[in-house]
């Protein structure tokens, strides 16, 4: 059976890739994708900890399901915002979206 640390390793790798995407990309859609990666890394951790530590308690699974839902909602809203910005500014580059800056 695959040991726990492997799952954690995959989770950490995914999280790091996501974090890099969020920090380094200039395209708002890519940033959003990075966020999704980070959320899924968390989900992997949640499910792995559930399976290895408290298999009789369903709360780990339930929590993961909630994270999916929230992530989906967040993506929907985020994409809607990005599309709205694109329609107005003809760009999705985050440096150019600086109306509120001094």
């Amino acid at each position, binding site marked *: 059976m695959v040991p726990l640390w492997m799952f954690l390793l995959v989770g950490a790798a995914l999280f790091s890739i996501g*974090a890099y995407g969020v920090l380094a990309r200039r395209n708002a859609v890519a940033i959003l994708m990075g966020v999704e990666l980070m959320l899924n890394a968390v989900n992997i951790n949640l499910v792995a900890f559930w399976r290895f530590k408290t298999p009789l308690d369903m709360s780990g699974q339930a929590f993961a399901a909630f994270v999916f839902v929230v992530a989906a909602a967040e993506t929907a809203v985020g994409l809607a915002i990005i599309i709205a910005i694109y329609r107005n500014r003809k760009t999705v580059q985050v440096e150019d979206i600086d109306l*509120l800056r001094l």
Partner: protein
Amino acid sequence: MNVNFSDLNFLPWLIPIGPLLAFLVITLATNRSRLVPATDSHEYGGHHPDYDGMLVPVVTPQSRVLSIVVGMAGAVAAWLIAWRVFFAAIRVEHFGEETVYTSGLNWMSTGLTTFRMGVLVDPLTTVMLFMVPLAVLCIFIYSIGYMAHDPRQARFFSLISLFAGAMLTLVVADNLLLLFVGWEIMGLCSYLLIGFWFEKPSAYKAAIKAFTTTRIADVIMLLGIVYLYSLTGTLNFRDILHNQAVLDQLANTPALIFGGLSAASLIGVFLVIGTIGKSAQFPLHVWLPDAMEGPTPVSAMIHAAAMVSAGIYAIIRMYPLLEAGGHPHSGEFVAPLTLMAVVGGFTALFAATIAVAQNDVKKVLAYSTISQLGFMMAALGLGAYVAATFHLITHAFFKALLFMASGSVIHAMEHGEHHVHEHGGHDAHPQLAGAHPVAELPASTESAAVAHDDHSAHGHDSHGHDAHAAHDTHGHAEHDDHSAHGHFDPQDMMNMGGLRKTIPVTALTFIIGGLSLAGFPLITAGFWSKDEILAESYHGLTEGFGPHAFVFVMLCLAAFLTAFYTARQLCLTFLGEPRTEEAKHSGLGGPSSIVSITMQLPLVVLAVFALIAGFVGVPSDFPLFGAIFSPEHNPFHHFLSYGLLIEPPTIAFNIIPVLFSFGVALGGLALGYAMYGRKPLEAGEPDPLIAILGPLHTTLKNKWYIDELYQVVFIQPAQWFSRVVVSEFIDRGVIDGILHLIARVFTFIGDFLKVFNLWLIDGVSDGIPMGIGNFGRWFRRIQSGRVQQYILVALIAALLIGLIFIVSAGFIQAAG
């Protein structure tokens, strides 16, 4: 405690409520007015010579009606309740000995004790409850007519309601402090009402004079109240005055100051001084004649029903305390009694002499009031408790009557003046005058004969009218005999004469009141009460008591002068022929007009009482009359004496003081008639008294120069003191000097601090914001607006914190 107003113990609470509520309602709800330029088309020109060219607030018609309705409702309610209590009380056998109507509630806590406030109806209150509401009601009815055209009528009704409410509060009060509250509210009301026509400088000056003069006395009275409370711990009348132990204790305690006096006497003297101010006794009488500046119903209120009666009422009320330690009936006098006897006796004569030489119809009455109050005061000083109360009641009736009748006379004269003003030019043509509306005719149906006389007189005088028809409205002064005055004075008796024809009802009632004042024997109320005072003083005289002898002599002379000036007034006003055009045209607007009815109905009511009120107090051993009116005992004396612990003795009938009463009253009236009535004064003829008295007449006319004396002795030094000492020396010299010095010191300190301020404080306070600014300028660089940069920082921070947690967890594990 169950409050049940059908219980007579609680009912007296309601007596003052009506007028007090009326005051609130009128003041808050009905005092609406609008500003209207004063023109001759308003009918209040007679009262308000100074309104010309001003904007005056005129009460709206709704407010007029409402204020009358509300004011009358309050007065009627008070009257009905008071008489309900009165008739219940007089049916009780020996009322006042054990039974009184009283109830109270806690007012305020004073340390260990609680001060209670409440109502008390005992025999003295009962007789006041007969007189006061009746007089108040008459005055209210009269005011409807008298103030009908006044622009501030609602204000008048609200104030006079408050006045009445205060008087009734004072009457039903069961303790000295509540009495004092009513007393002071009346002082305020008298101030406001004397100064009611405050456009006139004389009116507001008189108001201030009345207020300050009475204030002097009130402060001293308050001292007495406070001293009494500190000694006994209560101010309840029943607890102090109906308790021989307390009275004895007070009489035996030496006073704080004035070593020779007992505490009771000192308190008594303080209270008497309060009354000297309130009841206008010498030397604080000066405010009362000036109080005539107010509207006439107010004069009646002040002089009969309320204010001055309140002063006498207060000392009658406190009489057992004033008397404590002495026994005037056996010649043992204590300080307050002697003070009252001397002041009262002196004032009675003093004011009577002044009244002799006055020409103003109201001033004569004002001085006669002072004189009559002196009678009461002197009587009380002799221990004639019942006689003083009796005279208070009868005097209230005939003096209210006289004042309101004189108000009618003045109103009639103003009407005449108005008529001459308006119609002076037209009256040369009688047929035109006849075409005027009835209401504008001087005396229309009240005296058709005079109206006829008018026309014929104008016919003779047509030449003069042609001459002044060309003048403007003031032209009438040209042809009057008193043209030297410039302004016509409707109160001057020298301008009157023959008014019995134009205002017969007023004339008749005025004469009844005058005869009662003069003490016309047997049929008037004034005779019986005055006779009782004289009898009491004569009784003491025969025993050889000094104060009695003094009072007897003074009062006989005063009574003689009273009869004389009354006869003079009646003759000058009503007998003979009119001495001016105004008198000829005087009238109250016809018998059916509202003014005529409301101003004369109360006169008739009061005239009845001015005649019959004396019969309740006829001594039972008086020949014939005693057998008719008081077969068993003197009812008034009998009823009142149960309010006291020691029943005042009845004086056996003695013919000599009665003869004196007859003599002075009839003699004075006869002399007055002989001088003024037999051959009435012609127009422009000087007063025959001037020739007889010579320079004394001038002195009397100027009121013994008391006002001038006070001007020199008190007012001018006070003004000099305030100007020279207070203003120039203390204020500008000392206080300003100190202030300037302080200012200079502080300027110096300020200069020093300014330097300090410039380098240290400014340095610090400029440095801090500059530092913050610089820091901010540097620090704001990290706020780039790049979210990714923020997240990077946050990530690094999270990693660092996580690292710290792990490391510290490792340490803890290692340590644990």
